[in-house]
């Protein structure tokens, strides 16, 4: 085949060798309703002739992903690429928005999103440039054990356990900034079951509470009366039938 000054047994063909996918906050977890960045998209000309300029790189077959508002969904004009040479798609890469997820019930949220790379020239797709990547989406923190008492007698005390795990590479909690805040809201039918204002023995308190890994506060939505107690849990206040108090250790 002859094209201009070039001769070869085959024309040009683009193969995508790979691309990097990163989550928005670099904690290693792809969360719903956050950004997903694709960078370092490498393409390779495995044909016999130079790929002319004017090729377009983009991502298609987006599952539960959308193009970020205002951002370009494709990179125009990749430039010429000689046979057996690898190129890097210019620019800042691609940014997608992961679809938001409804609240999960009685299990952690886990889903998949996927995207497929594509390089085309004058509207014609190079089939070997289609590389699909499937990414698991979930949240960086999850409840791994939820165990309120199964039964209680009238006016009987019990212990409730909730285990929350951080599965990401970043620390979470208010100590690590507003973007990493997480909390747990526990709701009781206060007429029949209440949380006790204080632990009655050291064994009940639990190691993580002693280590200051969490604090707690009770409120009744709409009508709040917050009493600050420093250091110990020894005060309660009744206000308009709602039992409300706050504990601050920080």
């Amino acid at each position, binding site marked *: 085949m002859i094209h201009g000054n070039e001769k070869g047994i085959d024309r040009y063909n683009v193969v995508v060798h790979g691309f990097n996918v990163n989550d928005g906050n670099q904690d290693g977890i792809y969360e719903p309703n956050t950004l997903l960045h694709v960078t370092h998209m490498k393409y390779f000309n495995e044909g016999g002739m130079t790929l002319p300029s004017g090729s377009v790189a983009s991502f298609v077959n987006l599952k539960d992903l959308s193009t970020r508002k205002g951002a370009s969904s494709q990179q125009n004009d990749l430039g010429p690429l000689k046979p057996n040479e690898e190129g890097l798609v210019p620019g800042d890469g691609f940014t997608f928005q992961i679809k938001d997820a409804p*609240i*999960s*019930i*009685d299990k952690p*949220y886990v889903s998949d999103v996927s995207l497929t790379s594509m390089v085309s020239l004058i509207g014609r797709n190079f089939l070997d440039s289609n590389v699909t990547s499937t990414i698991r989406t979930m*949240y960086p*923190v*999850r*409840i791994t*054990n939820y165990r*309120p*008492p*199964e*039964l*209680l*007698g*009238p*006016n009987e*005390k*019990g*212990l409730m*356990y*909730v285990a*929350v*795990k*951080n599965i990401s590479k970043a*620390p*979470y*909690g*208010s*100590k690590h900034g507003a*973007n990493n805040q*997480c*909390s*747990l*809201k*526990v*709701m*009781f*039918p*206060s*007429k*029949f*079951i*209440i949380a*006790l204002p204080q632990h009655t023995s050291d064994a*009940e*308190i639990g*190691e993580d*509470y002693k280590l200051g*890994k*969490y*604090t*707690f*506060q*009770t*409120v*009744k939505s709409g009508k709040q009366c917050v009493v600050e107690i420093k250091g110990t849990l020894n005060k309660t206040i009744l206000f308009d*039938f*709602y039992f409300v108090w706050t504990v601050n250790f920080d």
Partner: protein
Amino acid sequence: MTDIFFFIFFFFVDVQPGQTVVICLPVRSTPLSQKRLYASFPITATLILRKKPISKYSKDVRIVPVFDASKCYDVLLVTCKEIGIKEFQGWDYLFQLAGLAYAPWDIHRYKRLTAAPELSWVGRAAFIVLPAFKNTITAKEFINQDLVTHFQKYDNTSIIIVGGEAKDLSHCLYSYADPIASTDANISCLKGSKYRLDHCLELLLPKESSSPTNFLNEATGSKAVTNRVTPGSVEENNQALNNKTRKRTVDACMLYNESLQASDPGRRSHQAVVDFNKPRWTFVNSICGSNVLPHVEFHRSCIPADADLLTVKNVYKQEGHITGGGLPFTVYAQGDDLLFMPRPEPIYLSNPWGSTFFGILSGLPAWIITKLMVGNDFVHSLKFHVSVTKKSRFGTSSCLHTSIPQHDIDFVDVLYGILHDKISR
């Protein structure tokens, strides 16, 4: 019923990568929960990340009463998670009508039905009522020793299984500790001879019609037409012979059981334990002669023959549920109290609640029934409905059945019927 929910927020201060934080929170049921026994209340936890709820977990907490072993009760009601607040209200109303003080024993709270020395229902309740549920609790859970103590130490006691199988109670009758000595298990010569004649003659006296070959053919259902025996047919024949011999062993055991019961001063029931894998005594040999397996031992019932072990059948096949077919009352709330309002229509004795009520009254001793008859409580003003019943006048011939039309009776009639039955027995 309006309910107030309150929230407790846990703020995580520091959860390092890969780390799990365990929250431990003491909770307490309020004294008001006494008025909602067997109700389930949800405790819900919502995990919030950057002010966005991401997952929600919810589990119910059942309000189950504590058994007070320091007190005595008329009735012990064995409960499980199948019994919710509505079901429990049915039981509460039933015991109130019958004038019986009761205490529940929840199988999930105490994990089992066997009594621990320091916390035991044995000796604290006269009548045990067990609503049976195949997948949760049946009469099989009773420990033989508990029942023996219950019936032997305390008179006028009963055990009533609602919606369960009578056979589930059979294990309670025997401790299997001391088999009856071989000398005690004699049967009369007359019965033994008759049995031999009916069952074993062809084995003892081989003849053309009772030859071993014909016997095998009879067992396998094939005709005696060939003398050729293939290896396969030998195996089949051996199996058939074995099966027939086992059946005869069982038949012989039944003969012994009847004989033992007849000669027992208390007319207690007896049970033969046949274990073909473990040779025991030679009872069967004694009447059947050779060729019969000696693998049987006999046990005498540990509990008195007149002990009331009652089973109430659920016509709706809903096991121990008594709400099927409706309850004879409605519930209305007055403040925090739930009050019973009896329905004006008669109580159907055929539906699960009615038959259970009847069953529990039947389990009461005659003197209590008599005492109830002369009372003048609220229950005496109630009417009970009896459905159409068929009564066989002579034998079981269907042409001699008479139908008694449905009719209403009052409480005294119900008690009179039970008393009449007790006396006639």
